[in-house]
Structures are given as structure tokens and as C-alpha cells.
């Protein structure tokens, strides 16, 4: 669905990560892990075409990302970002409806089909009770779910999420990841998220991309990366050890 070939990401002449090779598959939840500052967000931004690749290429459904028009990209890739929205007087329903923008005409009028897709997205994410609530009155977790519903209404085969579990309390983090996993499996979406919640990501993801401090991108199933020691190299330090069997961290007092 998405393929990275010798991709270099960065800004201008400053390369953040070089020679990345990996794939994202449909129907799978992929977690992007790695220490702060290693370039996870930069990679996601490059995949979403917010910034150009410095070298190499990203292929989306076999086509180079650079060859796709803005409108084509908006119908292939949906995003959920970390930036806090400061919109007043917009209901959750209106926000989800924004996801239909790539398909609506000049004036943005919704058709019956659009409305049906919006309602399905609301149902899938379980935000029905929030429909008419104003965005600014929602909690972080609720707002995050509304943005996921927006991405679903966008009807893209690929959804990229930048740290969707940040700012959430523990039960909400679990709920968020389980929701994303269910959407990937049931709707056959290709979903990729960056996160710092290592244990949870390992337990719930189908696939893991691990950006190592060395700049290498290790990919594989959680089991593979746990048993080849990549995860341990990433998280283990003095006082912290990783149990590859149970995907858990142990902190020694």
C-alpha cells in the first residue's frame, strides 16, 4: 500500500533520516516507535506529502507520491495530527463532515451519500452522543476520536496518525489503539501511528517500525523485533529491562 525506497527525510539540506526502506500493508495496524528527535514526525509528514522527500521515493499504491496531485493525495491518505485545534462553534458532526471536502463540489454541499459516510464514520468510532457537541467542549480523547472519524469519512485507504495516544489517560490510550486496530482489520485500512507507548504498541500492533538512534529503520512484527533484540536496544538502559516474551518493561528500583 505504501512503500519507502531509499527514502531520506528532512528539511532543506538538513537530512533527518536517510535510506529508509519499509512497507505498510492494508488491513494492518503499524506502530512507529523510536526515541524523541529521531524523526518520527518528519517521516510521517513526508508520507503525508506535507514536505518533500529529500531523496528516494514513497510509493502509494504503486504510484510515486510526488506524481500525485493534492486532490489525489487527499483521497488516498487521511491524517490525524497532534496540533491542538482552536475552532469554536464547530460541532463534532461538522468536523467529521470536513472529511468529505475532497469529494464535495465548489461550495462544499453534502450529498446523501456524503451524509451516509459521515454517519458510518461516527458509528464506527462510537462518537454518536457527541454529534452536536462543540469541538472545544470535548476532552482530548473525545476530540481525537472525532478526528479519526474525520479521517474515516475521508474514505482513504491509508490513515496516518501522529502520536494519537499522547495526552490521553491510560484507559483512553488502550481504547484508542484497540479502536485503530479494529478499524484496520474490519475496514481493511492501512493505519500507521507514531507513539511512545511501547508496551501497548507491541501488544496491539500487527507490525512495528522502529526508528533507531543510529538512523536505521527496523521493521517487522512485534514478535520479530522483540526476539532479535531491537526493542531491547531501544528501551533498555540502567534500571530498565525488556521482557521479550511478555512485551513488558521491568523497572528495577
Amino acid at each position, binding site marked *: 500500500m505504501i512503500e519507502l525506497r531509499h527514502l531520506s527525510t528532512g528539511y532543506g539540506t538538513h537530512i533527518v533520516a536517510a535510506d529508509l526502506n519499509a512497507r505498510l500493508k492494508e488491513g494492518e495496524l503499524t506502530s512507529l516507535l523510536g526515541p524523541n528527535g529521531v524523526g518520527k514526525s518528519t517521516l510521517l*509528514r513526508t508520507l*503525508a*506529502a*506535507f514536505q518533500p522527500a529529500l531523496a528516494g521515493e514513497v510509493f502509494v499504491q504503486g504510484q510515486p507520491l510526488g506524481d500525485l496531485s*493534492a*486532490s489525489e*493525495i*487527499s*483521497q488516498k*491518505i*487521511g*491524517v490525524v*495530527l497532534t*496540533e491542538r*485545534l*482552536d*475552532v*469554536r*462553534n*464547530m460541532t463534532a458532526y*461538522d*468536523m467529521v463532515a*470536513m*472529511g468529505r*471536502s*475532497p469529494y*464535495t463540489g*465548489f*461550495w*462544499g454541499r453534502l450529498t446523501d451519500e456524503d451524509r451516509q459516510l459521515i454517519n458510518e464514520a461516527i458509528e464506527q468510532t462510537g462518537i454518536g452522543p457527541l*454529534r*452536536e457537541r462543540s469541538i*472545544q467542549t470535548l476532552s482530548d480523547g473525545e476530540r481525537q476520536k472525532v478526528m479519526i472519524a474525520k479521517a474515516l469519512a*475521508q474514505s482513504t485507504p491509508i490513515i496516518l496518525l501522529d502520536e494519537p495516544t499522547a495526552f490521553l489517560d491510560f484507559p483512553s490510550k488502550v481504547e484508542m489503539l484497540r479502536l485503530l486496530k479494529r478499524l484496520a482489520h474490519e475496514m481493511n485500512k492501512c493505519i500507521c501511528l507514531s507513539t511512545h507507548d511501547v508496551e501497548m504498541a507491541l501488544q496491539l500492533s500487527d507490525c512495528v517500525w522502529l526508528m533507531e538512534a543510529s538512523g536505521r529503520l527496523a521493521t517487522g512484527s512485534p514478535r520479530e523485533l522483540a526476539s532479535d533484540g531491537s526493542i531491547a536496544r531501544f528501551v533498555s538502559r540502567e534500571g530498565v529491562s525488556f521482557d521479550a516474551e511478555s512485551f513488558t518493561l521491568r523497572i528495577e528500583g
Partner: protein
Amino acid sequence: MIFFSFLSLIRNFAVKKMRQHAAIILLTACAVLLVAANLLWGSLDIPLESVVRILSGESESQNPAWRFIVLESRIPQALTALLCGASLSTCGLMLQTLFRNPLAGPGILGIDAGANLGVALVMLLLGGSLGLGGLSLGGYVLVVAAAMVGATAIMLLLLVLSHTLRSATMLLITGVVVSYVTGSVISLLNYSATEEGVHNFIIWGMGNFGSVSLAHLPLYAALLLVGLVAAVLLAKPLNALLLGERYATNLGINVRRTRGFLLCCTGLLTATTTAFCGPISFLGLAVPHIARMLLRTSDHRVLLPGAMLTGGCLTLACNLLCTQLRQGSVLPINVVTPLIGAPVILYVILKQNKYT
């Protein structure tokens, strides 16, 4: 149970729509009434009956001076005020969305200071002969063009700085600095200008809807209508921009091009109103908030017409107030507008503090 909650949902939705329709209809009615009021009452006392007669075309029997005032002064003035209010409010709304900042507006961002400077250059450097009253159509075009260059230059500067301008404080400070700089350049120009030029410029600076004569009205109206129609056509990208540049890009909006259009549109509207009516303070900043309160939506397809109508109504009301406060003379419009604008700004700041 589920059925009932579904029903209330539909009702809520319908109520919201109805409320918006009602508000728009009400605002339109207000605008019509206020235009009528501006025709009926002016600085000079003309019997209502005579005004109605003159307006209905039976003007032969009427006092020719009254006829002149109603047809050549009150009609253009009312239309000028209506269009000016609609334009500045539209600018304010577009700027607030573009900069994602509730305190953005043509005045506070220094865009009309840029237009001011352009006008000052033409009016003061080219001598006192260019007082607006005696300007030919060509002279007007020159003043408008100068205002446009000034306004667009400031807009470009703001766009370049816009990444650091996310915070309200930075934005306000930049606007104040820009206004100071243009102010000092204008003082310098005043210093070397003729007495007549300075006088004309000061009068112009107080804001006046009476300065657009019937002959100049078509040019003024045409320029503003182009800007207003363009603004309405930008409703969909503006809605996407509410979510920020990245989300908008992801929704297939060409953000760079949209910004360019918004730049031209606000430049045209601010420059035209400023060149013709003088710098009108606070309206552009305050009206979008009033429109949002009335319509309770962030959807530009509703907000843009709403802000235009609200702005038109408020400006007509201000104009009426200016002619009625002191019998026999007209107060400058900028005496009244801050009285409406300042409370709205305070309200916005207080409300922001509540959320953060």
C-alpha cells in the same frame, strides 16, 4: 428511547438551521430598514414627507436643495456605508481564519496603516490639489492603487511573519509596530506637504462616508463587489483552513494558492474602503465576533454573508448616529466605531483567558 434521542437530534439540527435562517432574514430586514433610515434622517432636517416624495420621483415640486441632498448625498452615503461595513467585516473574518487568531483584523494588523501610507504618499506628495473632494476619476484610481500597494505590502510582510504570528500577542505587537512606522513616515510627509494637503489628509483620516459622490459610487461599488463575491467563493477553503494548514492540505486544499487569493481579496477590500472613506477603525475586528455570536457557527458559507450583513447594519447605524448626535453637523465616523469595537475586543480577550 433511542428513537426519542434521534428525534431530538433531528430537532436540534433543524433548530440550528432555522435559527441561522432567521438570523440572516432578520439581518437583511435590519439592513433595509437602516438604509431607509439613513435616507430619511440626515444632518439637515428635511421633512419625512418631502424625502419620500423625492425618493418616489415626484421631485419637481420639492425644494431643489433638498432634492440634491437626498439624491446626491444621502443615497450614495448610505450605500457607501453599507458596502464599507460589509467589506471591512469580511476582511476581518477572512484574516481571523487565515491567521487563526481571533484578534486579527485589518486595523489591528496594520493593513489599513499600509493603505494609509499609500494614500498619504499620493495626497501629500502630489500637493494639496489632490483633496478627495475635487478628485477626478483618474485621481481616485491613483489613490486606490496607492492604498492597494500599501495594504498588500503589509499583508505580504504579515504572511512572511505568519509562522511566528500564531500567538495573539505577537500579532498585535507587529500590527502596532507597523502602525508606528507608517505613522512616522506619514508625519514626515506632513512636514513637507502644503497646508491644504495636510488639511485634506486629516479630514480624510477621520473617516467619512460622505466622500464618495454619486459619480464615484459605481467604481467604489464595483471594486468592493468584486472583493465580496471573491470572498464568498473562498468559503470552502476558508472552512478547511479553520483546521490549520496541514489538515487543510490533507483535505486537498492548495493552501499557498488560497493564501494568495485571500491576500488579494483583503488587500482590495481594505484598500478600496480606506482610500474612499478613510481608515475606519475596529469594525473589521469586532463584527465577525458579533456575527459568530448571532449565528453560532464556524461555517463560512453562513458566516461570510452573516458578517457582511452585520457589518453593513452596524456601519449604517454608526453613520446615522454620527449625523444625529449633533444637529446640523456630522461627527467623524471614527468617533463612534471604537465604542462598538472596544467592548468586543475586551470580550474576546476575557473569553480566551477562560479557555486557557
